C-alpha cells in the first residue's frame, strides 16, 4: 500500500555534452536533454541532434545515471514524423523516459513502450490531474506555483489512494528546486509569440519578460512611476535553504532548471543540491553549510534568488538588474591543444586576453565537464613564466585529459 522509503533523486539539465559530463561528475542521479527543434530550449541551447542520443545515453548509463529526453513543445502535424524518428532512435538507444506535455507524444511513447514523464508545461496543480496523467505516465512534474501544503497533499494522497502509473509502479512526483522561473504559469507564455512571432511553447522565447519596462498612460503619454523597471522578470528559484521542507513534502525527484546554461552552472548547482540532500539524510543540514552552498550558487549564473511560491508567497519577487547577478564571471582565454598523459600536463593556445600565475581557471570540455584549478606553475612557450598573453602557448598541470577544442576560462569577480 505504502511506498517504500526511497531516497530523493536529483535531476540535472544538460544542453551540451560538457554539461552531461559536469552533471554526472557532480553526482546527478539523472540528466535531461533535448534534440532537434522539438524542445523548450530550441533557441537558447547549443542543441543536440538525433545522432547524439546514442552517445548521451551511453555516457550516462556507463555511470549509472538515467537519461531523459525532453520533447515538451506543442506539436504540429508536420512535426509528427520527426517525433517518430526521434522516439524510435531514443528507444533503440535505451532512453529511460521522455518528458512531454503534448498527448501526441504520450501516444507515440506508449505505442513504443517508452516511459513518459509529464512536463511542467502541463501545469499539473491538483490530484485529479495526477490521476488523469497516471494513465499515460509514471511521473509528473508539478506546476512551479504550488505551495508545500499543496504538494504534500498530492504526494500523501498518491500513497493513500495507491495511485499507480501506467507501468504499475506508484506515481512519482518531481518538482523544480533551482533555476529560472517564468512570469507565466510554469512556462505557458504567449508574450514572445505576441511580440515577435517567436513562440515560447516552441522553444523560441525571446525573453521579453527579462527587459525593463515603463508604464505610460495611453491617453496622455504620461509615464507612471514604478519602483522597478524589471516588472516581469522573476528572480531565480533557489531552495537550498529550505530543502528539508522540500523533501518533507514527499516528492521523489528534485529538478534543476538550466539547459541553456554552462557546464560551470550545471556542476555547481548539481553538486550543491547533491550535498544538501546527503546532509538532510544524514541529519547534518546546518546553517553554516547553507551559507557555503548559497555562496557557491551565487557564483554561477543567476538573476538573484528567492524561494519561489513553495513557502506561500502570493506574488513573485522580481529582479532589479539585467542579466546575471553571478558573483563570478568566466572570461574565455585559451583553447586546448593536447595532453601529455604521462606527466599530466595540458597544452593550450591563448587566443584572447592574458593569464598570470596563480589565476583561477576553469576548463570546460566534453570528457570532463567543468574542472576548476589554480594556474601553478605556468610554462609559457616552454619556459617558466609569471604571465602569458594572446598568441602564447602555455602548458600547465591538469588532472584530467585535455582535448583539442576544450576551452579554458579565467575566473574573476563579476564586478572586478
Amino acid at each position: 500500500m505504502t511506498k517504500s522509503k526511497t531516497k530523493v533523486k536529483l535531476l540535472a539539465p544538460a544542453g551540451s555534452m560538457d554539461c552531461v559530463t559536469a552533471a554526472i561528475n557532480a553526482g546527478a542521479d539523472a540528466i535531461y536533454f533535448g534534440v532537434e527543434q522539438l524542445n523548450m530550449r530550441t533557441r537558447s541551447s547549443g542543441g543536440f541532434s538525433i545522432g547524439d542520443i546514442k552517445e548521451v545515453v551511453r555516457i550516462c548509463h556507463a555511470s549509472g545515471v538515467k537519461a531523459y529526453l525532453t520533447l515538451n513543445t506543442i506539436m504540429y502535424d508536420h512535426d509528427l514524423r520527426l517525433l517518430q524518428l526521434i522516439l524510435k532512435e531514443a528507444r533503440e538507444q535505451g532512453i529511460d523516459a521522455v518528458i512531454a506535455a503534448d498527448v501526441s507524444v504520450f501516444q507515440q511513447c506508449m505505442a513504443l513502450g517508452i516511459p513518459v514523464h509529464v512536463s511542467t508545461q502541463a501545469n499539473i496543480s491538483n490530484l485529479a490531474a495526477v490521476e488523469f496523467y497516471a494513465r499515460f505516465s509514471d511521473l509528473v512534474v508539478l506546476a512551479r506555483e504550488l505551495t508545500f501544503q499543496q504538494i504534500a497533499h498530492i504526494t500523501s494522497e498518491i500513497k493513500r489512494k495507491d495511485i499507480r502509473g501506467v507501468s504499475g509502479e506508484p506515481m512519482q512526483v518531481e518538482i523544480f528546486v533551482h533555476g529560472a522561473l517564468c512570469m507565466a504559469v510554469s512556462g505557458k507564455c504567449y508574450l514572445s509569440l505576441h511580440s515577435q512571432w517567436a513562440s515560447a511553447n516552441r522553444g523560441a522565447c525571446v525573453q521579453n519578460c527579462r527587459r525593463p519596462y515603463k508604464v505610460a498612460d495611453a491617453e496622455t503619454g504620461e509615464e507612471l512611476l514604478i519602483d522597478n523597471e524589471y516588472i516581469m522578470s522573476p528572480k531565480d528559484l533557489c531552495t537550498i535553504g529550505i530543502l528539508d521542507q522540500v523533501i518533507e513534502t514527499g516528492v521523489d525527484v528534485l529538478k534543476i532548471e538550466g539547459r541553456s546554461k554552462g557546464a560551470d552552472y550545471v556542476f555547481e548547482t548539481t553538486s550543491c543540491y547533491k550535498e544538501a540532500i546527503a546532509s538532510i539524510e544524514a541529519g547534518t543540514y546546518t546553517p553554516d553549510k547553507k551559507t557555503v552552498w548559497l555562496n557557491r550558487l551565487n557564483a554561477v549564473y543567476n538573476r538573484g534568488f528567492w524561494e519561489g511560491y513553495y513557502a506561500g508567497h502570493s506574488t513573485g519577487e522580481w529582479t532589479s538588474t539585467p542579466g546575471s547577478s553571478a558573483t563570478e564571471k568566466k572570461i574565455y582565454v585559451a583553447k586546448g591543444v593536447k595532453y601529455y598523459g604521462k606527466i599530466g600536463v595540458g597544452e593550450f593556445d591563448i587566443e584572447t586576453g592574458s593569464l598570470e600565475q596563480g589565476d583561477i581557471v576553469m576548463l570546460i570540455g566534453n570528457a570532463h565537464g567543468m574542472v576548476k584549478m589554480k594556474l601553478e606553475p605556468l610554462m609559457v612557450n616552454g619556459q617558466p613564466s609569471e604571465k602569458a598573453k594572446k598568441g602564447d602557448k602555455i602548458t600547465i598541470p591538469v588532472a584530467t585529459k585535455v582535448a583539442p577544442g576544450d576551452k579554458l576560462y579565467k575566473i574573476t569577480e563579476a564586478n572586478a
Partner: protein
Amino acid sequence: MPKLIQYRDKCIGCGICHQLQPAWWRMSKRDGKATLVKGEKKNQTYVREIPLIEEELIRRVVRDCPVHIIKWV
C-alpha cells in the same frame, strides 16, 4: 529580382512562413522544418527569386521568422 534566402538547418518548424505564404513554403513531413518551394539548394542554404511586386510579403516573412533564418537580397 530579389532573392529570398533560407538558412534551413536552424529552422525550428514553427510554420509562420508557411502561414504567411503557403505558395512559397511547405512544412516538411520528413524533418518538420519549412522548405522553400522551388528553392535552389546550396549546402544548407536555399535560394529563390521572388518578384519585387511581392516585397511587402517578403519583408513580412523576413521580419516574422522567430529565429531570423530568412533573409532577402
